[in-house]
């Protein structure tokens, strides 16, 4: 009998079927943003795209890919690339990776950065899904969080994208913004729903270190809504999106049936993924890696080899904890069958018996009806961290 807590889990020998590529350029830095991104003006974008190609070469020779089923190009703002750069970049992706004909191929975009030429370059290059950072439809709030677009830009960008043949579109909205009221949020939701998109992401603002918001917060100058107000916003979102026929398939994500983000589900299912680009994270071969973050340092590092900042082996136990921590974000929850597949037949109740019992008693999780698995209860959804944290040492 294999000791599943010490033996290398089968999961660690799976070839990634998902690919993440990071484009670390933006037109400007938003006040809440701590992503690895740099203002594009004056950056060596072409040299960066060269370096990306080099990393692609090195990656596929180190870990030869099988058919890729989902691609996600994030940032930054990938759509700051000029149309020729876009064409060249996307061509290099499909040259190095065998991308399935029916793959989900997402690119992040900011409203106002997608003119018809660029949209055409994206479509021609294989992109079939666009995720726009709308954040809110209140122009005052947009300015207050450092966005440079206006609400109308969102509407126009969506119209252009549809005209260019993109049907699988999503927008991000944020709640819990400084001084944001429930009325403002309700209005944004109405405007978003009018766009009649198949997918919406609704994120609560999290104040991260090394951002302008964090400095304001530390000084007591960031008037965030109270916990109760934020809960009311979250409830409102769930009601409105649910009422409009969108499934709440992950804590922050809503979709019409069949339009759930397949790429992000890779993370939530604890499955491996390639991660390329400055500051990108990848998970393959039983290791999580983080790439060198700065643009020029990344370019230099890619000359020499794989541009890694850190590579950390994931122990079987840690991988199991991750499985719970990310899997329970999905409303469908975690399944015993998936756990057994990843960990050589291990049983959830053997590994996490005490934690599961306690969370069941607290009413934060429930057994999945008709299936051998667990998911967050209705009460557990807004208290997810209490659940995820329970599986950590």
């Amino acid at each position, binding site marked *: 009998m294999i000791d599943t807590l010490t033996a290398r889990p089968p999961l660690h020998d799976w070839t990634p079927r998902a690919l*993440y590529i*990071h484009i670390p350029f933006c037109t400007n830095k938003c006040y809440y943003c701590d*992503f690895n991104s740099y203002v594009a003006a004056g950056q060596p974008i072409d040299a960066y795209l060269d370096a990306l190609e080099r990393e692609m070469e090195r990656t596929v020779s180190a870990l030869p890919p099988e058919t890729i089923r989902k691609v*996600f190009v*994030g940032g930054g703002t990938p759509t700051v690339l000029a149309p020729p750069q876009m064409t060249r970049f996307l061509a290099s992706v499909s040259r190095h990776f065998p991308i399935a004909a029916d793959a989900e191929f997402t690119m992040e975009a900011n409203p106002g950065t997608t003119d018809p030429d660029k949209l055409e370059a994206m479509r021609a290059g294989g992109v079939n899904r666009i995720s726009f950072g709308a954040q809110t439809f209140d122009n005052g709030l947009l300015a207050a969080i450092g966005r440079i677009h206006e609400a109308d830009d969102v509407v126009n960008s969506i119209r252009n994208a549809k005209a260019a043949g993109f049907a699988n579109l999503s927008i991000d909205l944020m709640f819990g913004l400084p001084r944001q009221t429930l009325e403002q949020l309700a209005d944004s939701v109405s405007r978003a729903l009018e766009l009649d998109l198949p997918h919406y992401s609704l*994120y*609560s*603002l*999290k104040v991260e270190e090394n951002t302008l918001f964090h400095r304001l917060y530390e000084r007591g100058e960031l008037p965030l809504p109270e*916990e*109760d107000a*934020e*809960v009311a916003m*979250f409830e409102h979102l769930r009601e409105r999106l649910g009422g409009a026929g969108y499934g709440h398939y992950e*804590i*922050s994500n809503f979709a019409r049936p069949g339009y759930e983000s397949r790429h*992000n589900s*890779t*993370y*939530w299912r604890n499955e491996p*993924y390639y*991660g390329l680009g400055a500051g*990108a*994270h*990848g*998970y393959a071969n039983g290791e*999580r890696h*983080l790439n060198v973050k700065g643009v020029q340092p990344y370019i230099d590092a890619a000359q020499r080899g794989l541009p890694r900042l850190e590579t*950390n082996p994931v122990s079987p136990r840690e991988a199991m*904890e*991750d499985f719970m*921590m*990310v899997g329970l974000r999905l409303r469908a929850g975690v399944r015993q069958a998936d756990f057994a597949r990843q960990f050589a037949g291990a049983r959830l109740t053997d590994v996490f018996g005490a934690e599961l019992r306690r969370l069941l008693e*607290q009413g*934060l999780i429930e057994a999945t009806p008709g299936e051998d698995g667990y998911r967050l209860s209705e009460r557990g*959804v*807004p*208290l*997810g*961290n*209490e659940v*995820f*944290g329970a599986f*950590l040492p």
Partner: protein
Amino acid sequence: MTQALVEVRKRQMADNDRKQSHIRNFCIIAHIDHGKSTLADRILEYTGTLTSREMQEQVLDSMDLERERGITIKLQAVRLKYKADDGEIYTLHLIDTPGHVDFTYEVSRSLAACEGALLIVDAAQGIEAQTLANVYLALDNNLEILPVINKIDLPSAEPERVKQEVEDVIGLDASEAVLASAKNGVGIKEILEQVVQKVPAPQGDPNAPLKALIFDSHYDAYKGVVCYIRVIDGTIRAGTPMKFMATGATFDVVEVGTFMPRATAVAELGPGDVGFVTASIKNVKDTRVGDTITNAKQPTAEPLPGYRRINPMVFCGLYPIDSSDYNDLRDALEKLELNDASLRFEPETSQALGFGFRCGFLGMLHMEIIQERIEREFNIPLITTAPSVVYKVTLTNGQQVDISNPSEYPEAGKLEFVEEPYVKASIIVPKDFVGAIMELCQGKRGEFIDMQYLDANRVTLKYDIPLAEIVYDFFDQLKSSTKGYASFDYEVSGYRQSNLVKMDILLNGEQVDALSFIVHRDRAYQRGRVICEKLKDLIPRQMFEVPIQAAVGQKIVSRETIKAMRKNVLAKCYGGDISRKRKLLEKQKEGKKRMKQVGNVEVPQEAFMAVLKLDE
């Protein structure tokens, strides 16, 4: 004995007499901020004990804590050589003393090792209450007191007025008081001359059996216990079989030495000498500050009187946050007790906090210092319960018990009456603040005794106040209501019957023993309300609603509710950054581990001190 040997012996005795007649032992009495440490530094510099290059500011305050707070907690003893105007070289021993009321015990220790004291008075501020208390202690010890008016460089200095005050208030002749500015090095030589001329040389017989006073000690990892001693009679040297008269322990001396200011070995210490002795003493309990050292083979008949043992006035529970630190905490307390005989502790158990110690302190500052030293020097994170005083409780069956832990307070039915300690508080303030002080004291159940003008501007107010009220936030309030101008001192004046009740705090319906406190019945309702509000702010939201109740007996006097936590969930995985998510969750979990689980409620450390900070 041949004639020659007799001659040698005579010469030796003459040498010894000469040596002894050239020793001067003195200490410095001063209020906090009046410049004691600076003056000590200047004296070291002037006598060449340290070159200015070696000077680190406040040399004598060697603890980090002392430098940071600018106060002296532990005393130190330094040997200086001074060539006086009469052409002779004198050996001076300067024994540093703490200035705060809580350390009176330490002051009495250094006084017992001296023949003289410099009384430092700030030329702008004049005499403070605390200084007076120590001057009286010094007078009781028959010390020669040399007034020094310091800080004459200040624009607001009024040396003549302060001189007059020294004469009026203390009754000392201040006509020859040195006018000094320690900061600018003015008057240092005059001070040293007065020490040589006015402080008597130590008495004592070098040929009598050894008799030396331990006035302090500390533990050294290599040398074991280092005892700071003042030799009264006889001599002590390496190899002397010494006996601690109170504990009966005997050791052969390994090393004797003096502080110059670094510890330096010498051949022997004779009458009047101040220095240290080590003997590879590993067990800190064998030595006791205040004990007398003698020669085991040729013991002295009578030990020295030792010190007035001061009973602790303030008690609190000290608990390790991590229960596995319990034994380390015991070791830490034993090491601190070694040179702080006023510290008391005994094991106690709390349902809420587990195993810990009930500790007795001389006052609030003493308590704070000990806590900080344990956390810093021994690296043991602590939970401290609110301080309590000792109540004398008479039960209905006539039995009398002392209660220093509120959770042991008997139930109302078994209680005949309770007495609580009162102090006589002396507060010196500029006259503009008299109203504020009176209001404060009355609010603290104080009874007015007396008010006297020290001069045209300053007033001494005397009140009888329950010690328990001072233990709460009296210092802070005093400071804030007088802009820091008040000077405050107190002495215990006895016990009085009071109408007191025990207030219990219930979290989620369960009584938390470590949060109970004793309060005057008339204030119970108000205190209960405030503490419930405080706890509501301090205890984070839990997974369920947590009622907080304050109760006297069965009666709930106040109630607040901590609402259940409603939202705690991370928004997003940033481009597959699982490690960041993990770190955030781990951090959250770490925070929970630092809290104490009381029943099923997680309570942060600060909550146990909440009763202390009631802004009523």
